[in-house]
């Protein structure tokens, strides 16, 4: 698969390491080229420096042929805009946005935008761990 990742922080760099390790073609975009040093030494992926909401940058990253786009910068709105450009203007088959705000996530779900929210995930896994612990004791 040809996969574009936006944001090379802890999440983006880990995703890039793993996905390229599985043999995918991975391109990672970050506005700060210094962040690419987070990538694993064995990771073989293309890097593009620039704002992911800039169509020219997305084109440079090969959005026209991408199979998937994962928007995982630390800015919710940047991720939301990036995924919508990918979905509605370039018809990328699979897109997903990282969000921090659960309420925004609910709103986006209504707009048919696929999102992952760290706070929601954290709460869910805490609750399920608690329930498990509860039945064990």
């Amino acid at each position, binding site marked *: 698969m040809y996969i574009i990742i936006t944001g090379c922080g802890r999440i983006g760099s880990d995703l890039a390491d793993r996905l390229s390790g599985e043999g995918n073609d991975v391109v990672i975009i970050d506005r700060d080229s210094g962040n690419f040093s987070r990538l694993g030494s064995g990771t073989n992926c293309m890097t593009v420096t620039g704002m992911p*909401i800039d169509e020219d940058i997305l084109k440079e990253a090969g959005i026209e042929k991408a199979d998937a786009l994962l928007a995982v910068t630390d*800015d919710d709105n940047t991720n939301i805009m990036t995924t919508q450009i990918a979905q509605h203007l370039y018809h990328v088959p699979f897109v997903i946005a990282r969000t921090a705000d659960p309420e925004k996530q609910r709103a986006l779900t209504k707009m048919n935008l696929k999102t992952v929210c760290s706070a929601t995930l954290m709460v869910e896994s805490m609750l399920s761990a608690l329930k498990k612990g509860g039945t064990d004791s």
Partner: protein
Amino acid sequence: MRIMIIGGGNVGYYLTKSLSADRHRIMIIEEDRSRCEQIASDLGSGHIEVTCGDGTDVACLREAGIFNTDVLVAVTGHDQNNLVACQLARNCFGVKQTISRVKNPKNIRVFEKLGVDSVISSTERIAGIIDRELDWTDVNRLLKDRSCNVRLRKVTVMPGSVYEHRFLKDIGLPGGLILIAVLRGDQAIIPSGSTCLEAGDIAVIWGSEEDINGTFGENREKKEIAE
């Protein structure tokens, strides 16, 4: 009208000032607290409510009174924030009209495709024309509904065009075309014979589609005011 403005920078500030003078009810959201205090002390009145917060946050929009808002205008300095504010307003709160500023002109197409009603790229122009923009949309819709072929259109005078550096009295517009205003920077000039057109001016023309196309074919701005 109830108008919500997202972003209290220079554009948001002057927009609030001019729209409230027209007795619109303004709700403005700005993130920076000291900026909020300044807006409230400079412009504070019964017509203006200032909320300190993130205009792309659902709870903040609710608190600022987004329900029953007629128009949302997003004018922060970040395109992504303006887009999300417009989309939340429309999709979560049923706001009927959304207007956004974009910094990157390429985002005009993106925003239109993603459902923002009016997209404006020039910081300088927004404060002066936004109120009229609303009315133009209505006027053109009204004319279209009545099967009338007369429209209001904007025409940009391009550098090197035959209209550059010409006085209106020397240009001689064909009958049936009326030049209503010339928008230059943040000014709106009521034209007279001695008005001289310059590159970058936007002429607001009233006339039939054919006459406007025939006269200003090469000069027409691609995006029309409204359909």
